[in-house]
C-alpha cells in the first residue's frame, strides 16, 4: 500500500476557502498534506481525521529562503499556541491544520487578511501571471495575424494549430486568473470593511478544462510529429520535449534546491537560479539548433535520399512516389527528374504538395516539362468556403504585390467539367491571358496544379488529373 501520494493541485491563489475544503476532504480520507511543490503536492497516509485547515500568506517569505526566517518562526509559534500545526509551506503560502473542534481561525480580521493575500499576490503570483498573460497576448496576436494572412497553411499544420490553440487557451486562463483576482480584491476590500471575508469564486473546472485542452493538444501534436515520417521534425520534437523542457525544469529546481541546502541567501539564490535558467535554456536551444543543422548538412535526416554535386554545392535529389507524374501525362522518358513530396496535416486540414522538376545537372534541363501541385483536403467541412476564398485570392495577392498593374494575375472561372470538378479557375494575366495553372474545386478538396510553360493540357490529361488527385478514395499520401 502506498504511503505517499503526489497530486497536481489546481487552484487560484486567492481561493483560500476552496483549498481548505479540499485539504480537509483529503485528511478525512486519510491523506495529510506533507509537502507543497510548484506542480505536485505530496500527501502522506494517516488515520482518517476530521481536521480544520487554514491557508494563509506570509508576505515576507520567499520560495528562495534557505529556511524560515526568525519572524516566520515567531508566526509559527503564535499559530502553534492556538493549536495550529504547520502542514507544509511554499514561499509565502503557509498551510496549517488544527484538530481542536471549532478552533479560533488564524486570521480573525478580514481587512488584514485581504491585505495579506493581496500583498503576497503582488510579490509573486500576480507578476508571473501578468508576464504570462503579456506573452500569451503577444503570441496569440501573432497566431491570429498569421491565421488571417495564411489560414490554410496554418490550420493544416498540427504544430501551428497546437501552439496557436495553446496560446489562446493561455490567454483565457491568465486573463481569468488576473481579472478574477483584481475583481475579488476590489469586492473583498469593501466586504472586509463591513467585517466579512469575501470567498473567492472557484475557477477549478475552467482551469482543468483549459489544461486538458493543452494536454490533449500536446499529445495530438506529438503523435502527428512522430507519425509524420519526417525524421528531422521527429528529432526536434524529441529533443524539445525529452531534453530541453525537462532540462530547464531540472536545472532551475535543482539549482534552487542546491542553494537552499547550502543556506545561500534569498537574493543570491534568486539571482543565480534565474541566471542559470536563462543560460541553460539558451545553451540547450543553441545546442539543439546546432546539432540539427550539423546533422542536416551531413545528411543524417535525409534517409536514403540521393544527393548530387553541381557547381560545388550539394543538392538532394528525392525520388518520392507521387500520385501523378509528368510521365503519367506525357509520353516522355527523361533522366534526371527530382520527385519530391511534402505533407502536413491537422485535425482540420491536410496539405499534400508534390513537385517534379529536373535536376540542375540534367542533360535536358531546358526541355524537361515540370509539374507541381498542392492538394488541400478539407477535413472540417465548415472550413471549405474559407479555404476556397483564400486559395482564390492568396496567390494573386502574393504575385501582384510588387508588380505593376499590367502584370497582374488573377484566378478566372474556367470550365470545370473536363476536370470532373465542381468549379475550376485558371490563372490569368490581364495582359497575356490564361496560363497553365489551375485551381480545381472538388467536394472535399482543392487541387492547385501548375504545368510548365508551353504545355498544352489536353482533355485526357484533365481527366487523369481528376482521377488521380480529385477523387482519391484512400486519400493517397494525404494520410501519411
Amino acid at each position, binding site marked *: 500500500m502506498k504511503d505517499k501520494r503526489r497530486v497536481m493541485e489546481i487552484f487560484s491563489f486567492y481561493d483560500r476557502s476552496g483549498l481548505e475544503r479540499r485539504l480537509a476532504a483529503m485528511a478525512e480520507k486519510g491523506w495529510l498534506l506533507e509537502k507543497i511543490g510548484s506542480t505536485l503536492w505530496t500527501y502522506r497516509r494517516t488515520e482518517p481525521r476530521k481536521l480544520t485547515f487554514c491557508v494563509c500568506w506570509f508576505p515576507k517569505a520567499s520560495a528562495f529562503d534557505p529556511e524560515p526566517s526568525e519572524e516566520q518562526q*515567531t508566526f509559527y509559534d*503564535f499559530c502553534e499556541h492556538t493549536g495550529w500545526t504547520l502542514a507544509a509551506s511554499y514561499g509565502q503560502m503557509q498551510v496549517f491544520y488544527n484538530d481542536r473542534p471549532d478552533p*479560533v481561525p488564524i*486570521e*480573525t480580521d478580514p481587512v*488584514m487578511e485581504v491585505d495579506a493575500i493581496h500583498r503576497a499576490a503582488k510579490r509573486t503570483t500576480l507578476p508571473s501571471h501578468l508576464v504570462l498573460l503579456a506573452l500569451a497576448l503577444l503570441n496569440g496576436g501573432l497566431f491570429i495575424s498569421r491565421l488571417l494572412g495564411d489560414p490554410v497553411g496554418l490550420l493544416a499544420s498540427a504544430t501551428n494549430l497546437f501552439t496557436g490553440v495553446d496560446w489562446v487557451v493561455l490567454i483565457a486562463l491568465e486573463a481569468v486568473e488576473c481579472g478574477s483576482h483584481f475583481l475579488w480584491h476590489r469586492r473583498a476590500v469593501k466586504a472586509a470593511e463591513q467585517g466579512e471575508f469575501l470567498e473567492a469564486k472557484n475557477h477549478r473546472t475552467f482551469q482543468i478544462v483549459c489544461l486538458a485542452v493543452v494536454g490533449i493538444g500536446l499529445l495530438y501534436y506529438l503523435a502527428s510529429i512522430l507519425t509524420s515520417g519526417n525524421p528531422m521534425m521527429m528529432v526536434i520534437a524529441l529533443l524539445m520535449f525529452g531534453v530541453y523542457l525537462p532540462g530547464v525544469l531540472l536545472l532551475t529546481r535543482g539549482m534552487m534546491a542546491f542553494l537552499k541546502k547550502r543556506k545561500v541567501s534569498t537574493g543570491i539564490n534568486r539571482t543565480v537560479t534565474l541566471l542559470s535558467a536563462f543560460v541553460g535554456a539558451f545553451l540547450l536551444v543553441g545546442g539543439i539548433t546546432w546539432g540539427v543543422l550539423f546533422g542536416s548538412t551531413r545528411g543524417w535526416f535525409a534517409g536514403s535520399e540521393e544527393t548530387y554535386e553541381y557547381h560545388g554545392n550539394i543538392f538532394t535529389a528525392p525520388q518520392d512516389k507521387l500520385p501523378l507524374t509528368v510521365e503519367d501525362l506525357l509520353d516522355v522518358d527523361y533522366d534526371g527528374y527530382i520527385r519530391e513530396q511534402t505533407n502536413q496535416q491537422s485535425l482540420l486540414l491536410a496539405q499534400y504538395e508534390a513537385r517534379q522538376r529536373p535536376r540542375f545537372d540534367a542533360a535536358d534541363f531546358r526541355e524537361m516539362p515540370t509539374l507541381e501541385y498542392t492538394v488541400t483536403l478539407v477535413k472540417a467541412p465548415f472550413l471549405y468556403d474559407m479555404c476556397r476564398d483564400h486559395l482564390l485570392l492568396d496567390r494573386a495577392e502574393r504575385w501582384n504585390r510588387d508588380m505593376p498593374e499590367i502584370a497582374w494575375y488573377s484566378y478566372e472561372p474556367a470550365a470545370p467539367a473536363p476536370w470532373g470538378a465542381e468549379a475550376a479557375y485558371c490563372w490569368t494575366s490581364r495582359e497575356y491571358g490564361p496560363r497553365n495553372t489551375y485551381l480545381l474545386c472538388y467536394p472535399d478538396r482543392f487541387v492547385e496544379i501548375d504545368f510548365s510553360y508551353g504545355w498544352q493540357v489536353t482533355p485526357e490529361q484533365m481527366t487523369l488529373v481528376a482521377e488521380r488527385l480529385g477523387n482519391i478514395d484512400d486519400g493517397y499520401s494525404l494520410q501519411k
Partner: protein
Amino acid sequence: MPRAKFQTLTEQMFYILLCLKDECYGMDILDRVPAMTQRRVNVGSGTLYNLLEQFVTAGMIRETKVEGRRRSYILTDYGRETLEREYRRISAQAEDFRRIFGEESK
C-alpha cells in the same frame, strides 16, 4: 498611513492594546483577550502577529524584552491616547443610545 489607519479601532485592536497596559508577551495576548472578554472576543494568531507589527510601526506599543523568539511589549503614550480616544468614542455612542432609548433599553 498607519496613524490614519488607527483613527478608530476594531474590537480586536482595542483589547490587544488594553492587554498591553502592563508589559506582556505577545503570545500571551492570545489567551488574555478571550479571558478578559469571557471568550466573546478571540484574536487569531496571524491577526495578532500582524497587528503587533503594525502597532510597533505606528508607535502605539514598543518592544520591551526579547528572549529568543519571545518578545514582550508595552503600550506607549501615543497608544494610550489612541485607546482613550476610542474609549471616548464608544462612550459617546453608548451615551447617545441611552439618550434616545432612555431606560426602556434596560
